[in-house]
Every structure is written in structure tokens, then in C-alpha cells.
């Protein structure tokens, strides 16, 4: 888009020039009014047309010199003259029409045909380019025809030039293509859901068009795009039969896609509401935090209303109490300004915390925050943002974490997603990964980040280990497995727990495992290796009839496909028993290979879902224009497991905390015990009082504690 830049740079010069020449224009007119020759309509139109054509050529990238200052002046002055001539030669109306017609003509003759002949992603790119060009054209023509804006349009209360120009695009282009565009966008999104990488910057630009076309109203975006997007999302995920994802993907998607300007519009509206409803407790820095929070979450449908009303209620209630307190204090002459201010801040902090920790659309804020980080840090996420912008965002995220009570939940989700990024090479920038860990460490302590740091270090060590392995192989060529093998050895304690299934590996891979095992024995005898096949990838060659295509698949998928080396046709049951996997896994696998974008296997019957009575056959006729394709396997729903793991860890943490407290105090009242427990654990999570009670009961049964004989609300430590 270097063309754009040239024009824009010159545009700013012309602006200055226009202002100056406009001043001159007046004087010239005053002096030369009588001497001016009348321009008739034909002449004028022809002259303007030359200028318009020149502009179009520049936009089309044809070899055309830039506008000289004289040319610009002449065009501008022609318009001026034609508008100020005495009737019947004042041609304002005709010029206004000409302005509109120029766009219409250009769009119908050039823009629309170029869009019609392209499809899918290419069409989207063309649209983005054409819209950019159109905006430039509007800017330039408006400058030429500027004089109309000053008097004619205001006198007749007509739409200004800018609006007319943009409306042309909307009426001619947008109305025609928006359906196709929407479908192309949704298909891109679906591709990403299937695990492929897509051009997110393109998507953002396209969505910007939807928003800008609305010209300040969100109708176009909401009606034309959002509705279908939501419908498609619903359809897509209900096919996957996971209801909870439906609620998450909207905010998840919104987080990725929404613009800053857009958000701040909403944020301002809401904040203003809040200002009117709130007791005046809001301090400046808190407002910044609040607006940050709103910015993150405001695009979630219906997510914000309950939150804001509850927030309002709480703050109002707190405020009222404080006012009364302040009143009382004042009347007792004990009021200290500092105390009241402290109380105010406390109340606001509490209100903000409550707000932060309300779950949104089925996901906790801890999870949403972790997902947000993942989006920034992974490839295709925010590569268009500058390093400073990313650093800034990460800084804000870490600050926000202070208000989230389930920090341990955030840590676990973050860890899971970090693992995926590291193992599947989806991390955009190592520096940023390390940077956010440093920030988290500063905020939450070394223990919080120790595992994550371990993970990042593990990968570096694994690379070293791999090069030793390769050395070993070259020194012992007789044990070579015949396949290129890369092994990443991870330290169990650092990484999230992965279930390792007893996948029946194909013979070729079994040999690989053996060879590596032997090599590892030479390095160290004290460690146990557990193979996690669910995280591996394979490159295999599919020798299809049209041509050989290299397939990048997971180990599970590869094992499935290699079964077809021995049989042409296999049933679901046969596949399951040969692989030794669960139904859930087998269904996911077979779906990715026979019902998704690339049909490597032919399924009978040809339905869209896998059933245990299906049979599969190698699709020898498969082909693709690429020589190498990646067949994604959508990951399993981790959310439930993460929550389970975190709950378990919390039970242990509460136990340990209670025992620690009781050991040092020996005798303690129940309420006091609960309070100290909550405080001790507060750094990581907010323990549920009922959970604490349950753990106390358990500890009584295990003879760590007993109830005092005289006072049932007091506990004693049993040594």
C-alpha cells in the first residue's frame, strides 16, 4: 500500500496549501470578479473529469504523475468559480450531482467487476484494498469539491460530501457483496477452529469495513455480520455438541477481534451511566482500571448488564454506608479524613473485585484472562502490534490479575495454554513469553511462575538433548530406526498432567521408541520415561493416485492412517481395537480424517458424524493443490479437567493452611480460624467458607483437631 502513503503525505501539504490559497482565493475574487470569464457547465465538467480520471489512474496503480500544486489549485478554483457565478451559471447542484456520479461511475465500471471475479480470501483482500482506495478517493474529491460543503450543502441541508462518497460504496458495493463477504469470513473462522492458521489481520480489516460502513451506527456490523456470525457459531458448536463452548466462543472471539475505538465508545457510554448512578467515590486511577476492564469485556452480549447493575448496587450500598459512617464520625468529632478516604478506597476496591470475579457467559474471568494472554502470545495473534504495544498490554493484564481472586485457576489455564504453544511451536515471540513470566513473578511471587519457567527452560534443554540423540544415531548407524525422530523430553513436575494412553503404535514407530530408550539409558539410569503420544506430530507421505501429498498429522492420526497400509477397508470397531483407544478419541480422530476439510479416508455411510457402525476406506483419489497439508485434530475440552485439578490442589492447600494455623495457635475459635485461613490463602485464591468447614471436619476425623468440650465453636490441635 505504498501508493496510499504517497498520496497521504502529499495530502497534508495540500491541506496547508488549501488554507493559504483559500485566503488568496477571496482576495482574488474580490479584485477580479468582474474580470472573470464565465465557465459554462460543459467546460467545467470536462475539466473536472480530467482531474477525476487522473486520480483514478493513480489509485489503479497506473503510471501517472502525482498532482502538482497548480493542478490542484485549478481544480479547486474551477469548482469555486462555478459555484459563485451569477445565475443561471451557478452550477452548485450540477456539481454536487457530478461528485456523486464520479463515484458511481468508477464503482460500477471498475470496482464491482474486480470484486465479482474473485472469491473467498482473495475476494476479501480485494475488498479491503478497494475500500481503502475508496476512502482515499473520497478524501481527494471532497477537497476538490470542498466549496460545496461550505455553503450549498448547509443551505440546502444536504448530506455532506464525505457522507455522499461513503454512501456510494455502501449502496453499490456493500449491499451487493456483504453476503459473500460474511460467508467468506465465517469460513475463515471455521478454518481456524479446525486448527489452521488464518490471516487474522485480514479478518480485522474486513470487520473494520462492516463497522465503518455503519458510519457511526453499529447496525451494519450487528445486523449483517454479527447475527450470522452468532448463528453460524451456534450451528458449528452445536454440531460439536458442547454447550458451554457456545457461550465462551463469542466473548473469546470478540476479545480477538474488536477494535480499540469501538470499545472506547462503549466504555464511555457505560462509564457515563455509572457516573450518574454511583456515589462519587470514583478516583481517577480506579476509573482507568474500570475502563480497562470494561474494554476487555464490554462486547460480550448481555454480559455487561448484570455486572454493571450489581456493581452499581454494591458501590451505592457501600457508599451509603460510608456516608452514614462519615456522618456519625463527624458528629462524634472523631472523623479523620484519612480513615474515610481509606474506607472509600476499600469499598471501591471491593466493588471492583466483585465485578472482576463475576463469571461472564459461563467462563470465569480467570479463564478469559488466560485465553486473552494466549491470543496475544501465539502466532497469528498480534503480530501487527508493535513490541511496545504488546508489552503494554501484557503489563495491563498482569495488573488486572491483582483483582482476580482465582489466581490459581488463571495459573493453571495459563500453564495449559503455554504448554500447547511451546509444544506445537505456536509461540509468536520468545521475548514476550519470558517478559510476561517476569511480570507475573514480580506480582505474584516466584512460586507462581516456577513451573512455567521450568517449562520454557525444558524446551531449550530438549533441543540440546535432541542434538545429542542425533549424534548418537550417526555414531551407531546400525540402530537407526529408518525414520527421522525428534524427541522432546519434559520434566514431569513442570508440565500439566497429561493422560498417557496405551496407544498401539505401528511397528515403525515402536522401533523409534526402542532406539530412543536405549540412547536415553546411556545418558541417565535414574529417570523414568513416560511417552505421551497424544502430543506428537508426524509427517507422513500419502501416496495418492493423482500425486503424493505430505500430511502433517498427530501421532494418533498417523497411527490410524498407517493401519490402512495393511487393509484397504476397516470398520470403526476394528480401528478402535487395533489402536486401543477410547471411543471419544477414536471418534475425534476419524472425524478429522473423514468428515473435515481434507477427506483422507472415505466413510461409509457418508454422513457428517462418526458412528460405531461406520466403515472406512483409504481415499486413493484424494488430492490438493498443495504438496503438503496439515490436518488439524481439534483438542479435547480441557476446561473441566483444569477446574477439577485446581479444586483438588485447593483442598490440599486448605488442609495445609488449617494445620499450620492450628499447630501454632493450639486453640482457636472457628471464626478466627476461617479468617486466618482465608488470609493465608488469599494470594492464590479465595477459599469458599463451606470448603474450609468441610476440611475441618475431615481433619477432625483424621485426628488432627478436636472440638473443645466446653465450647463447640472452638477447636484444639491434637499433637
Amino acid at each position, binding site marked *: 500500500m505504498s501508493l496510499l502513503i504517497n498520496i497521504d503525505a502529499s495530502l497534508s501539504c495540500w491541506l496547508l496549501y488549501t488554507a493559504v490559497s483559500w485566503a488568496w482565493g477571496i482576495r482574488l475574487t474580490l479584485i477580479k470578479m468582474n474580470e472573470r470569464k464565465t465557465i459554462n457547465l460543459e467546460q467545467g465538467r470536462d475539466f473536472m473529469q480530467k482531474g477525476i480520471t487522473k486520480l483514478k489512474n493513480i489509485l489503479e496503480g497506473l503510471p501517472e504523475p502525482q498532482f502538482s500544486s497548480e493542478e490542484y489549485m485549478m481544480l479547486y478554483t474551477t469548482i469555486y468559480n462555478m459555484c459563485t457565478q451569477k445565475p443561471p451559471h451557478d452550477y452548485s447542484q450540477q456539481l454536487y450531482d457530478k461528485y456523486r456520479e464520479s463515484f458511481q461511475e468508477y464503482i460500477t465500471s471498475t470496482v464491482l467487476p474486480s470484486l465479482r471475479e474473485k472469491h473467498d480470501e482473495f475476494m476479501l483482500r480485494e475488498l479491503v484494498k478497494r475500500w481503502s482506495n475508496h476512502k482515499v478517493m473520497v478524501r481527494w474529491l471532497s477537497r476538490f469539491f470542498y466549496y460545496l460543503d461550505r455553503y450549498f450543502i448547509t443551505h440546502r441541508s444536504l448530506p455532506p460530501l464525505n457522507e455522499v462518497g461513503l454512501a456510494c460504496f455502501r449502496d453499490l458495493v456493500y449491499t451487493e457483496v456483504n453476503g459473500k463477504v460474511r460467508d467468506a469470513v465465517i469460513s475463515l473462522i471455521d478454518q481456524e477452529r479446525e486448527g489452521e492458521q488464518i490471516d487474522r489481520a485480514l479478518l480485522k480489516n474486513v470487520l473494520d469495513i462492516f463497522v465503518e460502513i455503519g458510519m457511526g451506527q453499529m447496525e451494519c456490523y450487528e445486523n449483517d455480520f454479527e447475527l450470522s456470525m452468532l448463528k453460524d457459531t451456534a450451528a458449528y458448536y452445536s454440531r460439536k455438541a458442547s454447550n458451554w463452548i457456545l457461550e465462551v466462543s463469542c466473548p473469546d472471539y470478540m476479545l480477538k477481534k474488536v477494535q480499540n475505538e469501538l470499545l472506547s465508545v462503549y466504555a464511555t457510554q457505560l462509564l457515563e451511566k455509572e457516573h450518574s448512578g454511583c456515589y462519587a467515590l470514583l478516583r481517577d486511577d480506579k476509573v482507568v482500571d474500570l475502563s480497562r476492564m470494561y474494554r476487555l469485556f464490554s462486547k460480550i452480549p448481555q454480559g455487561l448488564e448484570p455486572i454493571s447493575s450489581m456493581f452499581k448496587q454494591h458501590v451505592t450500598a457501600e457508599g451509603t454506608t460510608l456516608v452514614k459512617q462519615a456522618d456519625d464520625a463527624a458528629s462524634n468529632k472523631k472523623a479523620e479524613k484519612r480513615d474515610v478516604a481509606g474506607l472509600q478506597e476499600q469499598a471501591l476496591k471491593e466493588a471492583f473485585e466483585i465485578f472482576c470475579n463475576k463469571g461472564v457467559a459461563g467462563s470465569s474471568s480467570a479463564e478469559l484472562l488466560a485465553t486473552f494472554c494466549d491470543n496475544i502470545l501465539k502466532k497469528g495473534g498480534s503480530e501487527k502490534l508493535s513490541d511496545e504495544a504488546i508489552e503494554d498490554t501484557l503489563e495491563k493484564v498482569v495488573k488486572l490479575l491483582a483483582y482476580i481472586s482465582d489466581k490459581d485457576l488463571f495459573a493453571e489455564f495459563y500453564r495449559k495454554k503455554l504448554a500447547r504453544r511451546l509444544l506445537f511451536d505456536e509461540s509468536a515471540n520468545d521475548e514476550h513469553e519470558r517478559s510476561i513470566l517476569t511480570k507475573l513473578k514480580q506480582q505474584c511471587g516466584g512460586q507462581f511462575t516456577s513451573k512455567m519457567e521450568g517449562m520454557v527452560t525444558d524446551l531449550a534443554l530438549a533441543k540440546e538433548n535432541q542434538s545429542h540423540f542425533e549424534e548418537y544415531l550417526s555414531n551407531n548407524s546400525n540402530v537407526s530406526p529408518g525414520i527421522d525422530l525428534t524427541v522432546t523430553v519434559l520434566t514431569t513436575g513442570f508440565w500439566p498432567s497429561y493422560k498417557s494412553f496405551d496407544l498401539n503404535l505401528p511397528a515403525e514407530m515402536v522401533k523409534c521408541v526402542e532406539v530412543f530408550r536405549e540412547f536415553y539409558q546411556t545418558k541417565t539410569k535414574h529417570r523414568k520415561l513416560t511417552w505421551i503420544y497424544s502430543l506428537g506430530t508426524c509427517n507422513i507421505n500419502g501416496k495418492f493416485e493423482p500425486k503424493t501429498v505430505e500430511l502433517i498429522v498427530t501421532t494418533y492420526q498417523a497411527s490410524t492412517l498407517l493401519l490402512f497400509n495393511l487393509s484397504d477397508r476397516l470398520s470403526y470397531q476394528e480401528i478402535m481395537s487395533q489402536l486401543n483407544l477410547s471411543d471419544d478419541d477414536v471418534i475425534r480422530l476419524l472425524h478429522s480424517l473423514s468428515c473435515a476439510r481434507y477427506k483422507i479416508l472415505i466413510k461409509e455411510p457418508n454422513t457428517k458424524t462418526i458412528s460405531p457402525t461406520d466403515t472406512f476406506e483409504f481415499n486413493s483419489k484424494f488430492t490438493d493443490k498443495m504438496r503438503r497439508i496439515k490436518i488439524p485434530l481439534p483438542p479435547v475440552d480441557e476446561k473441566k479437567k483444569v477446574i477439577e485439578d485446581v479444586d483438588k490442589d485447593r483442598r490440599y492447600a486448605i488442609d495445609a493452611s488449617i494445620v499450620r494455623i492450628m499447630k501454632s495457635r493450639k486453640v482457636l475459635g*472457628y*471464626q478466627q480460624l476461617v479468617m486466618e485461613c482465608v488470609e493465608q490463602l488469599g494470594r492464590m485464591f479465595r477459599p469458599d467458607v*463451606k470448603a474450609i*468447614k*468441610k476440611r*475441618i*471436619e475431615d481433619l*477432625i*476425623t483424621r485426628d488432627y483437631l478436636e*472440638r473443645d468440650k466446653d465450647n*463447640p*465453636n*472452638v*477447636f484444639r490441635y491434637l499433637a
Partner: protein
Amino acid sequence: MDLFRSASGKAATKELERIDQLFYSYSNESSGMIDPEGIEHLCSDLEVAHTDVRILMLAWKMQAEKQGYFTLEEWRKGLKALRADTIIKLKKALPELENEVCRPSNYVEFYSYAFRYCLTEEKQKSIDIESICELLELVLGSQFPQQVDLFIQYLKTQIDYKVINMDQWMGFYRFCNEISFPDFNNYDEELAWPLILDNFVDWVKSKQI
């Protein structure tokens, strides 16, 4: 004085002898203890159902350790305290035993004894829900019939707890004594009541709606 002492001494010995004899009339020859079968005979002689709470009270008086069995020592201890050396005397002593147990100072002890008596396995700390329901009915059913009924209902419908421990057991007794029924107005779940009682109160309140 000698005569007097020897007379009471002789009487005491005679009493002990009769107590022992009574024991042997029910006990199992090989084990040397009164076993469940023996207890059944005892019950029919006393004209009391063997599931009657008074047998439990008798066991308490004996401080019997193992459910369903009485040792000679335990038997001696219990019957001596009751001053019963024949079946008829024992039968006559039962109403007074009941009174004794129901005295507030004794009742808590009896109540906790009842729980321990049901811990049949070594190292067992809790009792399954079904047995607890029976025990509750037996021990508290006459004193707090409504609370017991409601609590048993709750225990049978809830799924969080499969067993009850001593703390929860004792908590329920305290609950019946302290908390107003059926409104539970003075129940405060912020206090150290066992969680199961918090849940019980919630459950009752939700039913009332």
C-alpha cells in the same frame, strides 16, 4: 462387727455368684461370652425386643465394648450396679435404668456411647447412612421425634455424605437441644456447626418454600 461384716460379705459373694450363674446361663461355652444368640434369649426372658433401646442402655451400663457381645466382666459390672442378680430383678431395674440414662448429665454420654458401640471394625471412624438412620430413631426418636424424622429424610435423599462421623453425630444432638424447631430461627451457619447441618437447614428451608 465381725458378724456383721461377714454377713454382708457373704451376701455380696452370694450375689456375685448368682450374677455369674446368670451369665453362664446365656453365654456361649466355647467363647465364654454372651453372643448375639444369647442376647436374644436374654431379651425374650426380659420380655423386651432385642432392638429395644433399653438393651442398648444395658450395654451402656455395662460399658460393653463389642456390639452383640457381653463379657463376664462387663456383665458383672452392669448387673452389680443395677443390683440385679436374677432375671426378675433385672427386668424390674430397667425403668430405673431408663430414668438414669435420660438424666441430662448422663444422656450425652449415652448418646456418644451409642455411636461408638456401632463401630464394629477396628479403626472404623464413621457409620454408614442407613445404620445411622436406625440408630437415630432408636436413640433420639422418642425425645425429638420431628427433628429426627426430618433429618432421616434428609440423610436418605442427599448424596454428599455416605457416612457420618462422631463430630457430626454429636452435633446433631446439640442441634436438637439448642435450635428452635421448626423455624430454625436461631441457627447461624457462620458458627462452627458441622457442614452437614448447614446443608440440612438449607434443605428444610427450601422445602418450606
